[in-house]
């Protein structure tokens, strides 16, 4: 594998989003511009998804934003081998950024607890996923002027 600067830059932006910071618009546009010239669907998907989540976090109301943060924490905590401190209290995550989340393998209720949400609210998961998907399709069309290929949206 060779170095992939777009991927590294996307990961840095993901980390910003996890820290609830707003990435510079120019960085997102730069990534989108680079992705337009990409032939790899996975590269295009990764950029469109990042832009979509950034847009949602920028525009969503408080509860929706909280649920989306729970989804991001849930997803990024699954990265890497499981490694979590004994007696972890999800409500008191020391560093809920990418480094702090990787390997924690949070459950959805734990992810919701970590953002102060209702841990039993599984409908929040499906609602948020639907919102992410809709925004992803919007951003894909805006960036690439097409619809995503079936190979992506119909599964791997």
């Amino acid at each position, binding site marked *: *594998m*060779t*170095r*992939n600067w777009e*991927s*590294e*830059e*996307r*990961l*840095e932006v*993901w*980390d*910003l989003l996890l*820290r609830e*910071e707003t990435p510079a618009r120019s960085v997102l546009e730069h990534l989108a511009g680079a992705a337009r010239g990409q032939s790899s669907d*996975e*590269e295009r*998907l*990764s950029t469109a*998804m*990042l832009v979509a*989540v950034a847009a949602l976090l920028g525009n969503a109301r408080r509860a929706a934003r909280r649920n989306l943060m729970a*989804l991001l924490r849930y*997803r*990024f905590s699954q*990265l*890497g*081998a499981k*490694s979590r*401190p004994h007696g972890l209290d999800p409500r008191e995550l*020391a*560093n809920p*950024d*990418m*480094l702090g989340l*990787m*390997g924690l393998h949070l459950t959805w209720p734990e992810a919701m607890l970590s953002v102060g949400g209702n841990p039993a609210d599984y409908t929040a*998961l499906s609602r948020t*996923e*639907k919102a*992410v*998907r*809709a925004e*992803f399709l919007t951003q894909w069309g805006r960036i690439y002027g097409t619809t995503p290929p079936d190979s*992506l*949206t*119909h*599964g*791997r």
Partner: protein
Amino acid sequence: MNDRQADPHSLLEQAVQHDTQPREHTVHPDLARLFAALSDEMPGEERSVLSAHLATCSDCRERWDGLATLLSDEQQVLDQRVRTASLDVVVRNRMPETLWGRLRTSWKTFVAAPTGNPMFAAAAASVVAVGIALAVALPLLQPPVRTTADQVGVLVARVEHLQRQVESLAQGSISIPAGIASSQVTHEVLARFDWQSLRPYVVRPLEDWETISETELGDAALWPLLWLLNGAAVDPDNGLTSGKTVVLPTRAE
């Protein structure tokens, strides 16, 4: 549209997994950077760059996990060293439940009587303090090898005896110890201190109980309580010696 298509979670998962596939890196963060990030001493942007690297470099991720475990273990050791034993917890761990409950009830009874006889309050406090000192200071300040089942049994018997003395004091059937019989020792004075949360104190040259009481508690009249509190650990015949560690109450909040 099938279920898979309707699952946007898989799209997010695909995006994240694509970006976090392991890659070869020519440059790796040094130990100082890893420690800085683990110690929360790294600026956010730099931390994001490091996150991006660790997410795709399994070797560095392994080092990171190892360092994090090491630091966590060290922190636990430090926490245990600085933790001051809570007297009631230590006593509760050493006493049968029923005896502790009775002892605590006796303590609360005299503390909750601010309008009562201050002499009685001071005397009762001293008797309870002796019990506490016998039960706690001995195992705390002496080598743990002496904590045997027999020793605990002896301590329990002593505390039961002291509890009977408290009850006798309440009934007026025994006299108040002369050393405590000071009109200056009142409930208000006693309440200034938390007698359940003790702190260590190293005796300085030429100090005695009275001077320690005056300098550390602000009231020389409380010296008998200090003596009783430390009675089991300090030989009264030999007095205090410089460098000896004794325990004092903390200021009540």
